[in-house]
């Protein structure tokens, strides 16, 4: 059968040369056009350009897709209401594929090619940390929707975030564990993620300070699928709970394997658990677990319910934390542009820094002197494979 098709390739060979010549021609024409396009200011001058980078594909795609939908919703809303300073907002979104190295390239492109006035992104702290120094150097304000690692805003005075930081989140979870009466806790960290390492550090500090004991600190790397080795050695120490400051991708598998191995203790985590596929994969394995996050769609306040409604109408699904934070980051930027009455980097920076009591979806947001958001954390629990509101913890 296969031989029958071989003549096709024999026939194709003389053609190949012609194709190569044609390709070269097409490419050179394209290259010339591209060059010309980058030299000429083709963009309409009456747009405010904002760059957004997110993990739309790859391991953290749930995060990126969500935060992007939230950001887009905010921008659409602002434009529908007439835009800012009499101009429309143009949001340019680029995908960093959840890959290290990409954010730097993308942000360079935003600043040099697209001439953005501000940058929004990322959820993952490692990615934000790559982009932040470039924004700082070029004096372009950057607002991260959900990077909770303290180092992100320490890069410089042009870097902001609209979420709480890991020292707060870690301490909240440590206190929560102690309020439940647990004394012996094991920790399983994702060493490839700055977020996870940072959160684990603050949890351990907070937990030990009040007399708790960390029986075992174990780790894994993003992308791992088998955690039996770590869980086996934890099981022999019989911890009362396991703190799991990772991302949903691995957490769901860890939960599943822990349950099978007979580890019955509850799992604790942070906002990295928030992802569409967490419960789909983990099923009932996460029942009785707790994690801190930014917002709950079950919140009855009119601000939240209004957002949930709009989001559902547009995307056909309930928004999660990342969507809410994406929305808040774009709204805070928009408000600052309005207040500054200009898109000039320096003045815009000052306006963002002055944000106070912004009525965000994820709570009342005030940016402190370290450019971090001061706001409450929400602790959710999981019962019968569904999220349930547990409590809200103010800073």
């Amino acid at each position, binding site marked *: 059968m*296969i*031989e029958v*098709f*071989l003549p096709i*390739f024999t026939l*194709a060979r003389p053609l190949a040369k012609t194709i190569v010549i044609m390709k070269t021609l097409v490419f050179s024409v394209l290259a010339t056009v591209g060059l010309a396009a980058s030299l000429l200011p083709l963009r309409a001058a009456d747009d405010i350009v904002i760059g957004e980078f997110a993990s*739309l*594909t*790859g*391991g953290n*795609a*749930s995060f990126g*897709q969500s935060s992007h939908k939230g950001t887009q919703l905010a921008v659409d809303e602002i434009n529908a209401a007439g835009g800012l300073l009499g101009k429309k907002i143009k949001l340019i979104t680029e995908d960093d594929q959840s890959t290290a190295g990409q954010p730097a390239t993308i942000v360079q492109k935003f600043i040099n090619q697209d001439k953005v006035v501000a940058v929004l992104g990322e959820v993952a702290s490692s990615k934000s940390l790559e982009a932040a120094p470039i924004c700082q150097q070029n004096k372009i304000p950057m607002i991260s929707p959900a990077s909770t690692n303290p180092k992100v805003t320490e890069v410089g005075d042009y870097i902001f975030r609209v979420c709480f930081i890991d020292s707060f989140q870690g301490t909240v979870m440590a206190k929560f564990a102690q309020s439940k009466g647990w004394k012996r806790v094991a920790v399983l960290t994702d*060493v490839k993620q700055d977020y996870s390492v940072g959160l684990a550090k603050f949890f351990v500090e907070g937990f030990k300070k009040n007399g708790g004991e960390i029986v075992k600190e*174990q*780790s*894994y*790397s993003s*992308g*791992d*699928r*088998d955690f*039996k*080795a*770590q869980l*086996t*050695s934890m099981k*022999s120490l019989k911890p009362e709970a396991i703190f799991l400051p990772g991302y949903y*991708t691995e957490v*769901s*598998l860890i939960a*599943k*394997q822990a349950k*099978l*191995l*007979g580890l019955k203790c509850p799992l604790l985590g942070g906002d990295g658990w928030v*992802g*569409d*596929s967490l419960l*789909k*994969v983990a*099923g009932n394995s996460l029942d009785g677990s707790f994690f801190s996050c930014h917002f709950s769609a079950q919140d009855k306040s009119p601000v939240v319910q209004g957002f949930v409604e709009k989001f559902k109408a547009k995307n056909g699904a309930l928004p999660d934390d990342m969507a809410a934070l994406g929305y808040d980051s774009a709204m805070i930027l928009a408000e600052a542009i309005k207040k500054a009455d200009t898109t000039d980097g320096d003045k815009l920076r000052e306006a963002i820094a002055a944000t106070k009591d912004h009525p965000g979806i994820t709570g009342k947001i005030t940016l402190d002197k370290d450019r971090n958001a001061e706001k409450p954390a929400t602790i959710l629990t999981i019962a019968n494979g569904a999220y349930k509101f547990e409590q809200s913890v103010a800073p």
Partner: protein
Amino acid sequence: MADKIILFLQQLINGLAQGSIYALIALGYTMVFGVLRFINFAHGDVYMLGAFAGFYIGPRMLHLFGDKPGYGVLVSMLLVTMILCALIGVLIEWLCYRPLRDRPKLTVLITAIGVSLFLENGGQFLFGADPKSFPEILTDSYLSLPESWGRISELGIQLSAAISMLVTVILLFGLRHIVLHTKMGMAMRALSFNPVAASLMGINNSVVIAFTFGLGSALAGAAGILTSIQQPSIDPLMGVNAGLKAFVAAVLGGIGNLPGAALGGILIGVIETMVVGYVSPTYRDAIVFGVLILILLVKPTGLLGASEQEKV
């Protein structure tokens, strides 16, 4: 002391389960290298396609069996997925590598990287980038020995891991039979020995190469299913890591050598688990690759590989 021994044995079991998956994938690398002398970098992605084939076929297959998970569903899913992946493997060879048969090996190698990237990114486009939950085709449980056996009853294994080890052993013996006792197997061996002489003896090299790709891809597909019943979260990039480890396993065992690939796979699985359990997960890959370098320094052909004179 008893605690330590039990922990060690438990980690060994975990390592063997993980290693059997690597072994299945490594066989495909080594077989293709045997007949074509090039590394098919897209092989890890065929493993991913196997898992996704299971993801889409699973619910329908479950329906056929009256929505009851069980061995029947698993076996029929393995068969269907293996056939599908074999076809995919043959198709990849036919579309991408066959036209380059007479070109320098480097061209084919780079094409293989291209095919791999195409499958990974095409997969993200087609299936979506976020992890998918693999359908439950087998009710998983944890097997352990009866408690009356004393301390040793603390040892246990995931049912799905036990099954996948068993299936791996069956597939290995099946493969051995094909390679050693069938005409096609003889042709494969002849081709890997000397392609020109083989074709002079009336062997149709193209058919044998296509068959080899099909066989290797079928094993990768099976590995995709077996891994998914143990860790039911699949994504289009799952083949990258597994493929790399399996490739290392094939080189470790002696690339081109079938028992070597199986041995290498199991070794990598066990070393990985031991490093994670006793040293630190951070150094896992460093130590695995360090072992590879050490073994290649002492025995450049790999553990079971025979030295071969490079024809100039």
